[in-house]
């Protein structure tokens, strides 16, 4: 059944498109502007708190080129009027083989604009020795 997309879905899709576009096509410094000042990022289990720390982490990832391909993305409105996003896709860095990744975002409307307050990233790698 074809139906009009919900507003939270449209906002979510817009964010996802902008986020990965900036990630793949810029020096990644601008990514920080998509986060709220006190946002949290958990990158492969390592926490980063605040826009500055998050920008530093993302801008300094050790590769030249990266390309994300989104396989699926899901959106939900939360009880406190935020938007929960789950992205499932593949990424390829420089000449390395592609890898799967999962990323979860929480968006919150602040001062009439949507900002990311939470971001959790994991590669889709299994068989990790512990």
């Amino acid at each position: 059944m074809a139906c009009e997309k919900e507003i939270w879905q449209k906002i979510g899709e817009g964010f996802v498109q902008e986020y990965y576009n900036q990630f793949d096509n810029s020096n990644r410094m601008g990514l920080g502007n998509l986060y709220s000042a006190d946002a949290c990022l958990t990158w492969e289990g390592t926490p980063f708190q605040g826009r500055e720390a998050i920008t530093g982490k993302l801008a300094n990832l050790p590769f030249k080129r990266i390309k994300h391909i989104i396989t699926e993305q899901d959106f939900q409105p939360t009880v406190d009027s935020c938007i929960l996003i789950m992205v499932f896709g593949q990424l390829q860095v420089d000449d390395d083989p592609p890898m799967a990744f999962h990323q979860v975002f929480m968006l919150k409307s602040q001062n009439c604009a949507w900002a990311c307050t939470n971001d959790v990233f994991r590669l889709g790698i299994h068989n990790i020795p512990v």
Partner: protein
Amino acid sequence: MSDGEYDYLIKFLALGDSGVGKTSFLYQYTDGKFNSKFITTVGIDFREKRLVYKSTGPDGSSGKGQKIHMQLWDTAGQERFRSLTTAFFRDAMGFLLLFDLSNEQSFLNVRNWMSQLQMHAYCEKPDIVLCGNKCDLTDQRVVSEEQARELAQKYEISYFETSAANGQNVSQAVDVLLDLIMKRMEQCVDKSWIPDGTVRANGPTNPDISESSDRNKCAC
């Protein structure tokens, strides 16, 4: 994934800077192919191969064949997103250390990889084979064979000039590493360094080897 009988499960880890050709090298070894575009099944981080190992005595006589199930682990660039766990190093029994003959930095970084290995591998002197990869790119070569051999000699490890593109010396390098591992297992009086699960409990194993499962440091 590990069906069927085997005597030994051998885990190798391919290491080296990003872009030196680790994935292509392993692909060439297991599948005998080179795929420069590399369309891969996402999520597979090791390749497997079955073979029969025949030890050769000093007189050239060959012993009973041992069925080997080889797992070749590939970091596949994940080190750029997450630090490799020390378990990655600890669980491997042998190491293929690759650099790119057309990339000097990857050669200089061999010493960093060596010190990481000496720190985190199951013992201070694990079995390592050094591979100068991309030897087919003769016009782009910046590391000479002498330089590479000198470095290998310093660390007392074997050196091969390999090409994942045309297969040159790829299986030879892995064979030498396997030989080192099997010799070490035969010679090791204290078998306690062998990681758990190496010797298959229900296989026709040597009882001397399967007895102990402690993860102590290598004593040989």
